[in-house]
């Protein structure tokens, strides 16, 4: 008797143990109701790399194989749509409409155009491959990284276009585009050199290349050669598509152009007031000198140096061209329009404080605007304060942006309108807080004329990458921050977020170390007793990403959920502690004692897109606790009320250079001189 094989194997990749309550898992297995005979589900908790994938595929007997990751999103009809399609035909592959965020209700309305292709994640996930053909292809593509297998498969079988199925799939994150991705270190090449004219595939390739180069800035070393990259770029004419990379990844766009074999080594990156910022690329054997060394990247055939140079305006190709407007050619004057904004839905941050200072101290600047979403709760408040509000990201906002001489914000957005961008115009970046982590790759990638730092430590760190742009003034919101005295004692706990928990089910969430550490502390009998005995209240300010799961935490009479703004919550507290949040530094700035409770300090930075820069134990402005016991002991013995000369010294060193009474004045002086 002939054995009848099922149609499809789902390889379900989990990062941890299988979360059977997760939405994606439930939606997959719910298809068993009708399609049990058609598919198998294979769970793997190992990271799928090419060799594991080859071995899995080698053992499959189903006609098709589809990979799904537990952090991704699928609609309820996902599997049914795929199976219905595959049942009646033999194809190389079938794929859904791919997204990086929410899946629209009607995916067929998504236009299959270059912007879709460029935004699309091209990993293997969500795509049903013909198992036999994947197996064949893998024999040739065994040295290709998993993340490039989908594109390589299409190149190998010359599949120039694919009509997606009328269903969506979301990888639920777009951080790859921002932080890059890293290949298996042994990977010698990105794609096979199987030529194609498909603009779709070429778009995927240029995106992949940009993301790979972005990741390489973190990794610093690759088994790929620059010769291979040049071959790729010229064979697939990827240099013609570099304009797709430019808006969001200008660093990588310059890099790709250089890799093409450009004679040029210096690429204009950002116009500035005194001299422009150029990225310079060179072979380490023939180095080009610059002002700031940024990277040394080891390719298999060459070490590439990347540095930053401040070069005279006259070097700029457009300098003597009247067709190109120089936004710096008009100095900032009381006639200038200046736009301030914080987050679109939430003001109450550095831009608001600076705007308030600026408009009351410089009333001659009549065209200062504060941009905000009118649906924000802050709109009415600021309106009442007499703010000159404009709705953010509207046509009117962009027209104002075009006309303006300066943008000042605590957020960095990729503003582009009618040829104006932050690349060719003035931008003062205020930040939301103080950088304690190593965000250098991010800092180098961003456009700003002024980067506001708080204290010498941070300023020195920033000046390593942006010496002429860094301003050690302190954050605007700190100038007016004052301790609020009130009846009764308040303690404040402000845990930050973990990126790897974005997609987990509530069931799974309550099993995480994150939840257990926080909730455990909130319900610890010693704490509760202490609070009760000393008439103290513990306020817990949950991270906005946890707000929707707030009900999972066991609040009580003494442990309450803080609904106040960060500013109010901090200013009214007598002691503030966090795991890693830099917001507690505001408290320290005004003399409120702080502490760190880092129950997962060994793993925390492994899962985050950045690394810790601050050594909390030697440079932190408060004690660091690894265990709840030590923290509880510290709290219940009221050690936090005792003054510490060590932390006072650290505090002084940390905030060195910040004049609490001249924070805003210092920023305004600098911004008006741009």
């Amino acid at each position, binding site marked *: 008797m002939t054995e009848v094989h099922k149609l499809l194997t789902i390889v379900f990749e989990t990062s941890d143990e299988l979360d059977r309550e997760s939405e994606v898992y439930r939606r997959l297995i719910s298809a068993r109701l009708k399609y049990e005979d058609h598919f198998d589900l294979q769970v793997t908790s190992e990271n799928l790399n090419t060799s594991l994938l080859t071995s899995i595929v080698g053992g499959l007997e189903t006609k098709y194989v589809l990979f799904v990751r537990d952090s991704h999103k699928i609609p309820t009809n996902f599997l049914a749509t795929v199976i219905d399609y595959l049942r009646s035909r033999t194809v190389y592959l079938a794929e859904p409409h791919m997204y990086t965020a929410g899946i629209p209700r009607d995916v067929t309305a998504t236009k299959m155009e270059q912007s879709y292709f460029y935004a699309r994640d091209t990993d293997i996930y969500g795509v049903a491959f013909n198992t036999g053909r994947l197996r064949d292809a893998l024999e040739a593509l065994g040295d290709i990284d998993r993340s490039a297998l989908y594109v390589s498969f299409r190149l190998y079988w010359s599949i120039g276009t694919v009509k997606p199925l009328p269903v969506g799939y979301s990888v639920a994150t777009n951080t790859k585009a921002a932080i890059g991705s890293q290949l298996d270190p042994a990977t010698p090449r990105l794609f096979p050199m199987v030529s194609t004219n498909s603009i779709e595939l070429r778009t995927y390739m240029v995106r992949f290349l940009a993301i790979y180069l972005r990741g390489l800035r973190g990794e610093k070393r690759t088994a790929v050669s620059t010769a291979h990259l040049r071959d790729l770029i010229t064979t697939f004419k990827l240099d013609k598509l570099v304009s797709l990379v430019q808006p969001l990844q200008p660093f990588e766009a310059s890099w790709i152009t250089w890799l093409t074999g450009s004679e040029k080594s210096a690429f204009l990156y950002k116009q500035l007031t005194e001299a422009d910022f150029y990225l310079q690329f060179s072979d380490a054997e023939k180095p080009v000198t610059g002002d700031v060394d940024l990277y040394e990247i080891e390719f298999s055939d060459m070490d590439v140096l990347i540095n930053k140079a401040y070069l005279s305006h006259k070097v700029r190709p457009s300098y003597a061209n009247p067709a190109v407007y120089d936004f710096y050619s008009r100095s900032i004057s009381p006639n200038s329009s200046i736009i301030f904004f914080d987050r679109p839905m939430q003001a109450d941050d550095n831009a608001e404080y600076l705007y308030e200072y600026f408009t009351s101290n410089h009333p001659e600047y009549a065209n200062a605007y504060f941009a905000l979403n009118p649906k924000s709760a802050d709109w009415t408040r600021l309106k009442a304060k007499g703010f000159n509000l404009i709705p953010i990201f509207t046509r009117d906002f962009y027209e104002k942006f*075009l*006309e303006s001489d300066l943008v000042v914000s605590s957020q960095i957005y990729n503003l582009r309108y009618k040829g104006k961008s932050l690349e060719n115009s003035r931008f003062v970046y205020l930040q939301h807080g103080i950088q304690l982590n190593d965000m250098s790759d991010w800092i180098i990638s961003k456009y700003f004329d002024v980067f506001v730092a708080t204290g010498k430590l941070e300023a020195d760190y920033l000046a390593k990458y942006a010496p002429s742009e860094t301003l050690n003034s302190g954050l605007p919101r700190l100038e007016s921050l004052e301790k609020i005295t009130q009846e009764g004692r308040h303690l404040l706990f402000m845990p930050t977020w973990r990126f790897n928990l974005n997609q987990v089910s509530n069931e799974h969430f309550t099993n995480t170390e994150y939840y257990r550490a926080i909730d455990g502390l909130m319900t610890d009998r010693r704490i509760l007793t202490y609070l009760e005995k000393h008439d103290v209240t513990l306020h817990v300010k949950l991270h906005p990403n946890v707000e929707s799961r707030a009900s999972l935490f066991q609040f009580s009479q003494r442990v309450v959920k803080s609904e106040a703004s960060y500013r109010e919550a901090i200013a009214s507290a007598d002691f503030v502690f966090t795991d890693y949040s830099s917001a507690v530094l505001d408290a320290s700035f005004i003399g409120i004692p702080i502490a760190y409770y880092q129950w997962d300090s060994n793993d925390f930075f492994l899962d985050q897109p950045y690394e810790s820069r601050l050594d909390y134990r030697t440079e932190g402005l408060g004690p660091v606790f690894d265990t709840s016991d030590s923290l509880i002991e510290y709290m219940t013995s009221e050690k936090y009320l005792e003054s510490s000369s060590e932390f006072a010294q650290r505090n002084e060193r940390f905030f060195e250079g910040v004049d609490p009474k001249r924070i805003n004045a210092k920023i305004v002086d600098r911004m008006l001189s741009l």
Partner: protein
Amino acid sequence: MNIAKKIKNRVSKAGKEAAYSAVGRLLARKVMGLPETSKVRSELSKRSLDDSVRRMTSEGLPKGTYYAKLTIDNWKPHDGKPFRLLQNGELVYGNQVEPPARGFPLEYRNIVVTSENPRDFKLDIDAEFSIKIGRGSYTTPQQLKYDKQYGVEQHGDVYYSLRGNTTSPKKILLTFPGFGPSTSRISYAVSYLKDLTDTDLRDTLMVCFQDRYLAAGSYMMVDNAGRPLYSRVRDIISGFTARFKVANEDVMFFGASKGGSIAIHYAQEFPESQLLLAVPQMSLPYYFNKPFFRNNLFQNPAISSLVQPQELLRRYFDEGRRVDYFYTNNDELSNHSLIEFAHDVPNLTKYRVNGVHGAVARAALPAMLGLMRQFFKKNIEKSFICEQVREFPGEGTLRIQARVDLESSKIENANWFLEGRLGRTIFRQIMSNGQHPFVKFTADDQKLFRAYDSVAELSHITVLEADGTISKAPLNYHFKALEGPASKLDVAASPLLLETASPAAYNIVNDEIFDHYRYVSQSVNNNGTTVEVRFTNDLRVSELTTNSDQDVAYLAVVEISDNNPLIDLIGLRLQILSGCEKLRLVDVDGSLNDSDRATLENTDWATLEMRSYSSVE
């Protein structure tokens, strides 16, 4: 017998002789003047006699002259090459082969010849051809459709269509057409200006003249028989002004290229009228001295002997007429060293546009329509703000960038100009739009030249909108690049003279090249056939001498310098001006350098002899 039958009988029985007689022509014109729906026209149409009768309406040629239609069959191998049609060895027509409209033969219609026998004709290229000869002019279905669409009517030997207020106009706009492509199926166009609406023309009569003479137009200078048309057209114009009691100052003459030259020609007797011109030809013989015209219009003695547009325009400048003149420096063939250098002329506004001759009217259409609409109805001048000016000096040049207020920058369907004064003349240099809407700038081919753009004061950014709105923003900026003695260089638009009383200056500009000469000239021998141009390093020591050959009609001595990039043009212009057959260039004192010689030798001269001084001795 009804009238259709009468006509038919004339054609079939009395023969062509009678049909093409003056009586036959009048009758035919009367018939074709009836509405198409009339009984007679319907009858003709039914019997397919339309074309025969229409040909009878055409202008009568003197006895022994005929219209010919030349069709060249295998033109492709000859594409781009000149050809000549010879009648018994004598040139009757010539042109340069260009591809015809797709699907149509290469035809040249209405060549006037003096033989009815096709065997008398030959082509000087190895191409099969056929020739049709008749008493009536030739046309095409496309031309007939065009004429009908635009309402072109025949009035005697003059053709025009009427638009706008035809009953009680207060103003009159006269338009004259330019050339279409030389192989077009519609050889005779009108400048109808479709953008102008009935509302625009509520109080204005618009007369769109058609240049329906010879193979592609005669600049409305002569009819097919070579007789001047001036009085016939002038009478039509003055007929309108008299009938509607429209004063001359309420008459505007408009034309682009050929149309501009015609407009200048017919404005002679309307001294207070306005002229709106785009790239007119200032010297027709000079313009015709190129492959497309050399063997047709250039050969027409009647056209060359008429007073040339440059002479008329200089007269109008002296009269202080209102002239709005659009031109490009990349057009020395049309400009002929007049408009480029004209300054301190009252009521003259010069609009300099970049690009080639053929691109000017299209590029400046909004401004030209705006000027017409201002003529129809005076508009109030608006103002806006120029927020910032930057200058970009080059070697002897200046480009500028202006930032205007964002709101005004969004004005559409308009031309933006950098405006300055040249004495009493207003100068407007067209500008480009920058990447950002508020940026207006002069591009590389819009830059100002310190050598001859002695713009005393660049004062405004001016916007002319197609709807007639004019907006101005003061610049309030002192340009350093135009400072210094060179900017005060006297670059007069002096005419080139065959007889100078004392050393004269002559300036030439061709695109970005500026050249200037001093010279003396005199008439030598009335029966001469040659212009002799002697080049020297120093006009003072090389006095004009009559020590010349018998064939010399005019003698000119031209002082040159080390760099004479347009040296070929001065000789050519002198020859054309003189009407002489030959040009002799003489190197008096070894002054011509290799570059000069190369320029002179590479020129497409009709007849040229080069000598050194010793041979003159």
